[in-house]
């Protein structure tokens, strides 16, 4: 199929040749590292700010309120003002805490989300690293962030923090299984773990449409389990405000609290990006089988807009979850995972393997 989607690798290739004309290969690599790092940092900060703003607006509209509307047009600068306020706050050292681990914990959490961001394909040819085990890599890296949460809870030397960290640990460790199994089902369909390969395999239709009902089931399981994994409502037991003040980051202030806050929102973005990539085709436009004309028209929309659109759709669904359902109790939470989601997803995988063996999918 001829495709006229703009390939970002031509742009990066041009930058590379331009830099190579200016300096020696070693410096070219170094400059490119710095450039990619800067782009990621900038994107990270801006996305984080925007997500906080979006969360407040979405929450407001769900509850029939207006939301932030004083600073700037539609309150759009509100989060920037909040950020400046957070940066100016005092960093309070906690007596009888473990200062080394206390200061280390926010960095572990934020580094993990950075590592995961590196492997996501943002648009055609726009991906920092394309591992041949992409999905597995993202899962491995995001499973590390629980270490940061546990350390934060322990080193604060506070009962609220410790209980929050324990809950969060139990929750993340158990829901990781369902996330992995639901991603595995699409890997079985696509036959590859490479994220770009998975996107390419959806050129004639997204997996959620091509994979019949099992794909829809695993999409729903992925949404539930990943919402739990990023500690968001209705699974936000780790920081249940009414019971634990703020859970594992009760004792943090200023920029360290901002790190936790930012990492939480960026984890939401990463989870949504993975959902969009694996189930909804990533940057691949909406293609239907052999309808060449329709596919050509869809190709005119740039791939990065497709990606952002799908990702923000999933983010909106996750926010919708949070403001619709009441919070679960810890035993209900673990029952949901171990007695319902896990058996369903195991059965689902067997079903999908059968479908793939018989060649029933498109």
């Amino acid at each position: 199929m001829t495709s006229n989607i703009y390939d970002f690798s031509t742009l990066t290739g041009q930058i590379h040749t331009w830099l190579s004309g200016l300096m020696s290969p070693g410096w070219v690599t170094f400059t490119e590292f710095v450039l990619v790092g800067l782009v990621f940092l900038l994107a990270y900060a801006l996305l984080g700010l925007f997500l906080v703003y979006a969360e407040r607006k979405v929450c407001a509209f769900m509850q029939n309120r207006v939301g932030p509307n004083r600073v700037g047009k539609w309150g759009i600068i509100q989060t920037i003002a909040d950020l400046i306020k957070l940066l100016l706050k005092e960093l309070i050292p906690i007596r009888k805490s473990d200062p080394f681990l206390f200061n280390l914990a926010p960095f572990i959490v934020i580094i993990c989300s950075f590592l995961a961001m590196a492997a996501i394909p943002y648009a055609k040819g726009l991906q920092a690293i394309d591992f041949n085990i992409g999905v597995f890599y993202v899962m491995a890296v995001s499973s590390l962030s629980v270490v940061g949460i546990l350390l934060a809870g322990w080193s604060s030397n506070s009962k609220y923090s410790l209980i929050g960290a324990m809950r969060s640990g139990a929750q993340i460790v158990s829901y990781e299984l369902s996330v992995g199994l639901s991603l595995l089902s699409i890997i079985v369909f696509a036959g590859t773990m490479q994220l770009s390969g998975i996107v390419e395999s959806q050129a004639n239709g997204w997996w959620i449409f091509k994979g019949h009902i099992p794909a829809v089931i695993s999409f729903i399981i992925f949404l539930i389990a990943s919402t739990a994994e990023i500690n968001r409502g209705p699974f936000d037991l780790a920081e249940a405000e009414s019971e634990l003040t703020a859970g594992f980051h009760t004792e943090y202030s200023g920029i360290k609290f901002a790190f936790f806050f930012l990492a939480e929102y960026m984890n939401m973005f990463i989870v949504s990006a993975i959902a969009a990539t694996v189930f909804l085709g990533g940057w691949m436009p909406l293609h239907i089988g052999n309808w060449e004309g329709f596919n050509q028209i869809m190709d005119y929309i740039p791939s990065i807009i497709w990606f952002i659109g799908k990702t923000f759709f999933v983010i909106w669904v996750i926010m919708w979850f949070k403001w619709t359902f009441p919070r679960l109790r810890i035993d209900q939470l673990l029952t949901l995972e171990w007695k319902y989601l896990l058996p369903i997803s195991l059965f689902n995988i067997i079903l999908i393997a059968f479908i793939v063996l018989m060649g029933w999918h498109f």
Partner: protein
Amino acid sequence: MFYLFSGIILICSLLTITTRRILRAAVYLLCVLLSTAGLYFMLKYQFMAAVQLTLYAGGIVVLIIFSILLTHHITHRFKHPDLVKLIMGVGAALVGAGLVFATIFSNSFQPASVQELPVDMTVIGTQLLSTEKNGYVLPFELISILLLAAMIAAIVIAKKEKNKNTEI
């Protein structure tokens, strides 16, 4: 990069055994495992690196930290070990290190002339389940059965004995 990673591994391994706070030891251990994963990435063996991250860093260290959280208090410190135990431990470690070094130095390493093989997931998967020569199907099944037995045993141990009184 190699020296950076191996430096981190060496320093953190030393710190793991010399620190007196148990959770810090776990964190240093985590650093060691992460740097090992970094070495695998440098070897372009991404599958191994990801397995290292998920299993050791994401699984085992989290379990260790979890059990520390359940059993220890933050003010807890280990006592310094006895002199006799210390000497015996250091001696055993030295003997082990001597053996390893003797083996390494007696072997003359040659740079590999074989072409680099792409480590593909499908290759690993088919190799694991192949019944032909160099196939790993028998160890794979054995390990699966062992794991199953371990899981069933864990469930039996963790199971509450609800009807104990009614049966007697």
